[in-house]
């Protein structure tokens, strides 16, 4: 299938996205960070009850938590980004790429019609998706194409 066709007609739900990692907003910063480390999450979605209310990423950890005093027992909602860019899960791929690209964000949280988080789409997933549409070119290319001899003996 043509990449343009896929961008225009497939939704993020069609290509698959990561299930969300979530914590409640009153969870402490310390335990949230411990969980991110343990499970190797680059970002975690913050819930208020069942509803999505914010996001906390590696970058937020570096810039808002690391080296600051007395933050460990504070709730994660103190350092999360509230009201980040979000999208519904049946958004088209080109719309999702648009949001990632235009807003310069690395993760796009996806929510359902009840405002519950259903997953995230990352720049990494987006780039993999684009790469998968050029399988021959992308995966079969040697680092220096000119080193492939044009003739069998290289002459």
């Amino acid at each position, binding site marked *: 299938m043509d990449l343009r066709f896929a961008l225009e007609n497939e939704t993020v739900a069609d290509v698959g996205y990561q299930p969300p990692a979530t914590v409640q907003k009153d969870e402490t910063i310390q335990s949230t960070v411990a969980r991110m480390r343990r499970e190797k999450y680059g970002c975690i979605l913050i819930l208020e009850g069942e509803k999505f209310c914010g996001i906390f990423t590696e970058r937020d950890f*570096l810039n808002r938590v690391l080296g600051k005093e007395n933050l460990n027992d504070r709730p994660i909602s103190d350092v999360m980004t509230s009201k980040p860019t979000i999208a519904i899960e049946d958004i088209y791929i080109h719309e999702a790429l648009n949001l990632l690209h235009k807003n310069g964000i690395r993760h796009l949280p996806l929510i359902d019609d009840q405002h519950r988080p259903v997953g995230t789409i990352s720049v990494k997933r987006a780039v993999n998706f684009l*790469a998968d549409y050029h399988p021959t070119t992308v995966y079969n290319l040697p680092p220096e194409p000119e080193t492939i001899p044009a003739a069998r003996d290289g002459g």
Partner: protein
Amino acid sequence: MNCPYCNHWNIPGADTCENCRQDLAELDHPQASSKVEASMMESTLAKLNLKPTCIVTPDTKVGEVVAILQERKFGCALVGDVSNIVGIFSERDVLIRLADRYEESINLPISEFMTLNPEMLDINTPIAYALNRMSIGDFRHLPITKNGQLEGIISLRAMLSFLSEWYPDLIKSKMEPA
């Protein structure tokens, strides 16, 4: 695969046709099937938006490196010197390797926490190859060298940006109003 000259079936990857001895090696070369692919194979990394980055020496203290990342909003720091990069230290390393022991590590050298010998590519490498490495190798940043000297880094975002230029009607650039 069938020989295009005599239609004899050969095992995939055969150099010559078993039947007519014609050269089949050429068939294995990746061929671009669209303008985007052609551009990815022909354009080199020089066409991408290389980001400046910071280089610190291996004995720089962890606390100093973290301060640089925080102040200059970099996602990673390279360790070594311009012609010899020995490691990389990224936001991910901050979370995974530093989060639970930052206070006691603040005066330790960054070399104890960095990822050793990051993969680097020359600036004359085709974009398609870099995309492959980032996609398969799970790299978020790829340091780029020119004549053996560090020139900058490319990020996944630069790659997304390059690919989206081919679909300007679908994926708008950051510069245009929404």
